[in-house]
């Protein structure tokens, strides 16, 4: 009815104001900008994490150091083969490098945070345990005892029993 009335009268319906649209969009934008963390290291091994249900969240992401274990990405397979390898930071590494890696991670943390350091093991699900055990033994030698096996959240089974 308003349309007819406005046609009869001289007044026009004011257009929907979009002046606040930028504000809304900026608000969403800031949210995404703050929540974004850019990937800092390049992956040189492919990791498909296994699934688990009894998972806990890593509460301090900044206190975690990551050890990736998996077969090299296709670009490096000609050079390194397809056998599982360890990636620390950006490059292929060996068991012996873990000691320095852990020491460097410890060094970059404040004194108070050091006992809370967690080593997140991102291991491909098809990797054999031998290499993982070697890494774990090396971590024990370095006294980096707090570890986390990174896993994906398992989708709940549809069929109950």
């Amino acid at each position, binding site marked *: 009815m308003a349309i007819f009335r406005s046609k009869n009268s001289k007044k026009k319906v004011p257009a929907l104001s979009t002046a606040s649209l930028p504000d809304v969009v900026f608000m969403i934008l800031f949210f995404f900008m703050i929540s974004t963390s850019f990937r800092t290291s390049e992956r040189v091994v492919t990791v498909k994490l296994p699934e688990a249900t009894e998972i806990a969240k890593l509460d301090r992401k900044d206190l975690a150091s990551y050890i990736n274990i998996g077969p090299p990405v296709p670009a490096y397979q000609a050079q390194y083969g397809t056998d599982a390898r360890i990636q620390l930071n950006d490059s292929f590494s060996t068991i012996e490098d873990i000691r320095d890696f852990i020491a460097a991670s410890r060094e970059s943390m404040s004194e108070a945070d050091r006992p809370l350091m967690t080593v997140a093991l991102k291991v491909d699900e098809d990797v054999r345990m031998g290499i993982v*055990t070697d890494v*774990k033994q090396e971590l024990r030698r370095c006294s980096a005892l707090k570890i986390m096996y990174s896993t994906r959240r398992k989708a709940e089974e549809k069929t109950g029993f």
Partner: protein
Amino acid sequence: MARPAGDINAGSMADIAFLLLTFFMMVTTMDTETGIQRRLPPMPDENQIEQAEQINKRNIMVVLINNNDRLFAGGQEMPVEMLKDKVKEFLTNPANLPDLPEKREKEIEGFGPYMVSRALVSLQNTRGTSYKAYIEVQNELVKAFNEVRDDFAMQNFGKKYSFLDEDQQRITRDAVPMSLSEREPREVTKRRR
């Protein structure tokens, strides 16, 4: 109608903001780091004479995953689905059977004496075990411990473990200790170089 001068057209502001928004939405990954948190046992002192800790046979349960990802728990092969109930029975020993772990009375601060089970689950694997099978079994074991803790919390506090306050969680942890040992596989000395 006289319009005030110097009115900047801000109509394209939304477009610019949208452009930035789309960019950030595309590069954002909302993944939170999740996983199974465990604590490794400290390395035994090399100078120390290795002291084989005497553990009563009834108190220990060996969970072994072999090279072919077959699971053996307590001396018999079983599918991974059965492991949780087996471990729960082992941890609680509801009928006080003589071949399941013994319990010893322990004074828990703020709670009183409680019969704490001396059960120990020892998870062993070989070098050829796949990581997937290992995590699956690890997950079942943690689940068994969590469910026993939940049962204890439910009985005594009427709430699940994760909803308890800090003190009650400590009591539950003392009553149901997470005694899961990850022994290094036997071949660990033959380390490949």
